[in-house]
């Protein structure tokens, strides 16, 4: 018997309106439509969602964990991007 695995999809669920979709896990499916149905059956058996996104896992572009510090480095020395960088006298209110 030839075994050919169905592609893997990542599943994102919006638990209620007003919130972002959040990664829930993954499912295998032959096509997009089946991926949606499988994601519903696997991850929302107790009404955990009002909206589901599925995306083929091999289509996701991700940053490299080995390069994390180099990749995020440009943000590290820009402390003036934070409000606490600025000294404002106590007498000044609502600022």
């Amino acid at each position, binding site marked *: 018997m030839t075994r*050919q695995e169905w592609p893997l999809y990542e599943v994102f669920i919006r638990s209620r309106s007003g919130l972002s979709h959040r990664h829930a896990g993954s499912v295998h499916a032959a096509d997009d439509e*089946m991926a949606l149905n499988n994601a519903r059956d696997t991850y929302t*058996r107790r009404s955990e969602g009002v909206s589901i996104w599925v995306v083929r896992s091999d289509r996701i572009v991700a940053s490299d964990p080995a390069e994390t510090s180099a990749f995020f480095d440009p943000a590290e020395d820009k402390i003036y991007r934070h409000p606490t960088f600025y000294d404002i006298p106590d007498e000044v209110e609502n600022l």
Partner: protein
Amino acid sequence: MYTQGLDQAGKSGPDTREAETATQLDAFQARIDAEEKIEAKDWMPEAYRRTLIRQISQHAHSEIIGMQPEGNWLTRAPTMKRKAILLAKVQDEAGHGLYLYSAAETLGVSRDEMVGELLSGKAKYSSIFNYPTLTWADIGAIGWLVDGAAIMNQIPLCRCSYGPYSRAMVRVCKEESFHQRQGYELMLTLCRGTEEQKAMAQDALNRFWWPALMMFGPNDAASSHSAQSMAWKIKRFSNDELRQKFIDVTVPQAEFLGLSVPDEALWFNEDTGHYEHSDIDWQEFFDVISGNGPCNRQRLAKRRKAQDDGAWVREAARAYADKKAAAEAAA
């Protein structure tokens, strides 16, 4: 638990990766010690990866095989309500298997490889699912004791150092509580019923008590790679600690039902605040885990048949997807 840890870590296949340096290993352990979660693509020692693949896939297989003993009673549940409950529980177990397979896949093993190892008999699953469900009361005993023991083990796994596994366990634990409660309630109903019903509940407890205690795996002294799993924070409590916790909470629940735990020597030690119990029959445990329990052959045969019977569906879905993709490409 569902991964009773009997085969050795890291014995499968030669390590072809470049050597792991002491610096890498130290940095990794430092992250673990700082309670940082390890994520899928992070650097990790090969032995950590293999231990997790083994543990998570065994856990997944247990959820999948675990549907069979309960599935046995689906068409014979005494009421529509009980049938709907049991069906929902069995569906949850399928879901647990799927969450766990997908967590294991993040470590670079394919679903097909894992399923193949289960079907070939190479992979292990929890010994508990090789016992038969002879009466309806067994469904109550399983929910109460088997899911109860599972919860005991799975709650600390929610804090496991490997992110995808810990997140899968959080999801699983949310669902397990219903499993245990419906089982206990079923037992309670039988115990408040006729003499025969109560006797049936007692018989189920008699048969499931010891196998449930075995779910926690061998005694600490005989448990080969517990120490490493503890250091990696995959495991947080030892087998014996978890087993003791389980006994301490479960004995009073049995008393409430008016049932007796099948252990003549069981007594409550006021000084330690724990129950003391007889020795477990480890020979039985090793027999069951090595394939010679009452139902091992039947469980695997049924799983293989389901896989084979579904082959044409998987192939048809594949062919349909390919055809649709080709049509879209041409349009």
